[in-house]
């Protein structure tokens, strides 16, 4: 996907002036110039602004929902409760188990709701960009996920016990450990957060590019060309844009779900105990999600 982006960008730049070519989205979209406080650590660019606005939206909407929560729920409260219930039952309790999962419900709910809303920025007019479409937002969520499964492991087994369980899994002949221990160490320190980050980030990035390409082409075919011969193509690309927009909404939920369920399963692995049973559950739960992720990527 990245190389594809590079190609379109290069050609886009070459033909930028001539307007013989649709104004395709480029990776410059994801590297906007800081608009406020430029040069300081608190510089704000367009994507960060989107992120801040969406955060405020989350705080206000969910804050009002919670402070007005009634025993007999309104329609909106029912929707929010359905989301909470989904995260609690289908992600946390299914993966970690009810008893041990309780303390992680808040964490996973934060991840799911925040990432979902951030992702939806991709289809919100005027934002037109997922708040998770730069590497930093997925990265900090991934780091928080890392913190949580390390903390869970250390709390359950102590630091030594946690590392022994992760690096030297039982039931394997010792020479294998020479190979396995470093791999596992990299896995729990780098690969997991990196895969979480890139999966989310790349999905949002490619989603934006796909929607943007369809709409840019539509604009080009309908308005920017002098001849109207290409109008039928415009109809096609507009339909494509609508389809990709719907697909983006789906991916927004899907990626939030995958991020949450993977974090839950990492925590579950760190907790150990009844590992086999829970691993089975995790792989069962994660398999369709991973397949869908592969499809959408």
């Amino acid at each position: 996907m990245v190389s594809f982006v590079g190609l379109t960008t290069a050609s886009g730049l070459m033909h930028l002036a001539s307007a013989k070519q649709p104004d395709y989205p480029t990776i410059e979209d994801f590297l906007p110039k800081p608009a406020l406080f430029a040069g300081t650590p608190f510089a704000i660019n367009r994507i960060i602004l989107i992120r801040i606005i969406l955060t405020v939206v989350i705080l206000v909407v969910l804050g009002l929902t919670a402070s007005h929560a009634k025993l007999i729920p309104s329609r909106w409260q029912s929707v929010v409760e359905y989301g909470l219930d989904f995260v609690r039952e289908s992600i946390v309790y299914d993966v970690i188990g009810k008893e041990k999962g309780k303390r992680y419900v808040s964490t996973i709910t934060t991840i799911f709701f925040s990432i979902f809303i951030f992702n939806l920025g991709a289809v919100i007019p005027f934002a037109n960009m997922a708040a998770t479409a730069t590497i930093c937002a997925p990265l900090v969520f991934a780091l928080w996920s890392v913190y949580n499964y390390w903390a869970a492991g250390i709390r359950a087994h102590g630091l030594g016990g946690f590392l022994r369980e992760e690096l030297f899994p039982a039931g394997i002949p010792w020479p294998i450990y020479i190979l396995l221990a470093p791999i596992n160490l990299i896995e729990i320190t780098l690969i997991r957060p990196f895969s979480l980050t890139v999966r989310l980030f790349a999905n949002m990035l490619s989603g934006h590019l796909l929607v943007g390409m369809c709409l840019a082409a539509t604009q080009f075919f309908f308005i920017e060309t002098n001849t109207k011969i290409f109008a039928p193509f415009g109809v096609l690309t507009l339909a494509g844009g609508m389809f990709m927009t719907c697909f983006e909404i789906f991916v927004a939920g899907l990626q939030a779900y995958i991020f949450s369920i993977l974090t839950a399963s990492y925590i579950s692995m760190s907790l150990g105990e009844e590992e086999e049973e829970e691993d089975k559950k995790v792989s069962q739960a994660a398999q369709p999600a991973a397949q869908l992720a592969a499809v959408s990527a």
Partner: protein
Amino acid sequence: MLTQAASGIDLFLPETYDIVWSLVILAILIFFFAKFFMPKMNKVLDERAQRIQGRMDQAEQVQKEAEELKSEYEQRLANAKSEASHIREDARAEASHIREDARSKADSAAKQMAANAQKAVEAQKLQAMNALRDELGQMATDLASKIVAQHLENDQAQSDMIDSLLDSMEKDQDSAQTSTKNNQ
């Protein structure tokens, strides 16, 4: 950034300010969810669950009470029914008793009245007979006096006549008594 063409790798090199803002936002979100949103929603959800449980317990309690009431009422109803049948039987017995009483009283009263009537009749008959006898005696004496006036000298004849007169009167009286008896 605009002057040099961006390459794909730039996407993976985070800017400092981007990291700062992402961390700030994540911290705010974690704080919001952990300290406000989740506790508040959980409180409502727990309260609802508790309320529903309470309602169910309450309903069960009410049902139990209703059942108790029902059995109590049934008991009372059965009692009332048996009491009513008792009362009815008592009343019936009382009624028959009263009827019996009244009948016997009426009987005795009737008998009394009949006896009284009988006595009165007897007395009047006696009176009448006495009166008749006196009158007849008077008439006989008068008659006798007239006859005697004609046969003053004949004492024997006078006494014979009176005797025969009295005899006939007694016969009359006997026949009168017989006929009265027959009439009764």
